[in-house]
């Protein structure tokens, strides 16, 4: 997905299309006979070129991250790579004052996103799914923050939070000495301030995912539920919500990955300084900051990688298993 960190996930419940599935084995052998040599070369290139590009830039680099995490390297010649074992990790876990706060903030980021904007997005989706008037208009308003770049959102919210000229402090009079509230610089406040901006965006994204999920709910379920005399809440709780399971899986994965990827917004907001450290910020500071320690930066990336794969692998296995069965 994206660099705009709109995390996208493949379909959790992609089922095979209806219709007769061809007998794969025989079809394949038939293909093989019909393919000329030129066809095979064409096919090889069609699958090969994109795969080589993707694997070289994404997987080779990811594996290089793991390898480099156990070394020190000045980045100049390959012969200066030195094996240091677990040194980088030891330093990271024991002597880096930013590491544990960053881990904690990433966790808080996820917890907040899953507890506040996700249910609220679901709530909005359920309301907008009632075929009411102006539904498109409301949807657009909630979805606008998802379209605009995270960097731009960072600037917009700076205008809201700016301690001297911002909207909040101007209204509550907290831009004067004595009452001064520094939403951006105060390490006790800035994480929560930036999380409000992140939640503002996340809500619309979740709303769209749930709206798509609700569209695929069989209308006869609602009718049956209404006939049984269930009220709106009962219908939602015992009929609609259980059918949203595949959507919930996607939402959970998207939210975890969004929390791990959070970067742009924080970087624009206050450079990830005191109070808003995140793993992604620490990795990046190791490249564009003053100290560029390759092994050390890679060690932080490995922590990020391990957490991500712990989510990605089970999710993909479940997805593809469903596909196979279908």
């Amino acid at each position, binding site marked *: *997905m994206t660099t705009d960190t709109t995390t996208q996930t493949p379909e959790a419940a992609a089922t095979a299309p209806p219709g007769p599935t061809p007998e794969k084995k025989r079809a394949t052998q038939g293909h093989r006979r019909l393919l000329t040599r030129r066809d095979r070369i064409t096919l090889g290139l069609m699958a090969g070129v994109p795969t080589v590009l993707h694997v070289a830039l994404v997987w080779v680099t990811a594996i290089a991250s793991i390898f480099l995490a156990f070394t020190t390297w000045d980045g100049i010649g390959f012969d200066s790579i030195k094996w240091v074992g677990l040194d980088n990790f030891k330093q990271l876990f024991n002597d880096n004052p930013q590491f544990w706060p960053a881990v904690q903030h990433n966790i808080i980021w996820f917890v907040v996103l899953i507890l506040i904007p996700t249910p609220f997005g679901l709530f909005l989706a359920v309301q907008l799914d009632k075929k009411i008037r102006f539904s498109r208009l409301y949807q657009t308003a909630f979805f606008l923050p998802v379209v605009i770049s995270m960097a731009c959102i960072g600037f*917009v919210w700076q205008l809201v939070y700016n301690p001297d000229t911002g909207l909040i402090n101007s*209204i509550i009079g907290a831009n004067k000495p004595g009452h001064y509230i520094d939403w951006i610089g105060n390490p006790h406040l800035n994480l929560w301030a930036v999380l409000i901006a992140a939640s503002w965006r996340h809500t619309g994204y979740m709303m769209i*995912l749930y709206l798509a999920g609700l569209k695929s709910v069989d209308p006869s379920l609602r009718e049956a539920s209404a006939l049984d005399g269930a009220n709106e809440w009962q219908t939602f709780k015992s009929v609609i919500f259980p059918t949203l399971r595949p959507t919930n899986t996607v939402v959970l994965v998207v939210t975890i990955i969004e929390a791990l990827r959070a970067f742009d917004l924080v970087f624009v907001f206050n450079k990830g300084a005191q109070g808003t450290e995140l793993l992604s910020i620490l990795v990046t500071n190791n*490249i564009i900051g003053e100290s560029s320690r390759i092994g050390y930066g890679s060690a932080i990336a490995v922590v990020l990688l391990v957490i991500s794969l712990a989510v*990605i692998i089970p999710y993909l296995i479940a997805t593809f298993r469903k596909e196979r069965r279908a």
Partner: protein
Amino acid sequence: MSSTTLPLKRRAPIRPARVLLHVFLAGTALAWLAPLLWAIFSALRPYSETSAKGYVSWPSKLTFENFTNAFQQSDMLHYFGNTLIIAVPAVLLTLFLSSCVAFYVSRFDFRLNLALLLVFTAGNLLPQQVIITPLYRLYLLTNLPGITASGKLYDSALGLVLIHVAFQSGFCAFVLSNYMRSLPHELTEAALVDGASVWRLYWQITLPLCKPAMAALATLLSIWIYNDFFWALVLISTGDNMPITSALNNLSGQYFTDPNLVAAGSLLTAIPTLIVYFALQRQFVSGLTLGSNKG
């Protein structure tokens, strides 16, 4: 017209619950737009006025001056050009390459296809920071004398195009392969028996049928790549080579000296995204949800 007590068209009675719902939704929608409206309001006011009266005050003059100043002073057109040079090839290449992979995986059931899709999809879900350190070094060590202005992959539009294509093709390959699998097999089977080449099956039969999915993905990719901040921040060193979204970071402070100009400048960078979104709203939303229900 005689007044009848029974209107011909039965209109649903106005229910208090509905009214309440509309009040709630309209209020929430307004609250959601508030930060953006605030940015627009700040951008429309002259700096002299806001510094004298404060930002929360009744405006005596609204002007587009901040927008024109932000646009001209920072040479924004140049940065929009940079984005165009990166985004157009990246979107086209991503669609082309991922549709090739999808075609292979969905039409020719070779044993590789599951592994291939897994690799692509998983790679696509990784946080970018996992790969950035080695990628940055790789870009610095790749010498391309004469091909890019910098002589390396680092600090070049080519480098950004490559990473965008590599990173985004995972998701697109996944979506397109699902889409292609839903197309009737008989179409390609028949053509294959008639001796059509594989390339023709792809280019003349399969691709035209994938237009809706391609349009949705193209919209999504354009917006994502335009909005990219991170890759350009790390992989471009010369401020002049930056695409607009990342350049914004350098420009604020350099040219956008007061909040009114910052507001105008950041809103200007959002305009192309919004135009694409409003023009292709349906494609964008369907692209986003292609991943979460049966596209």
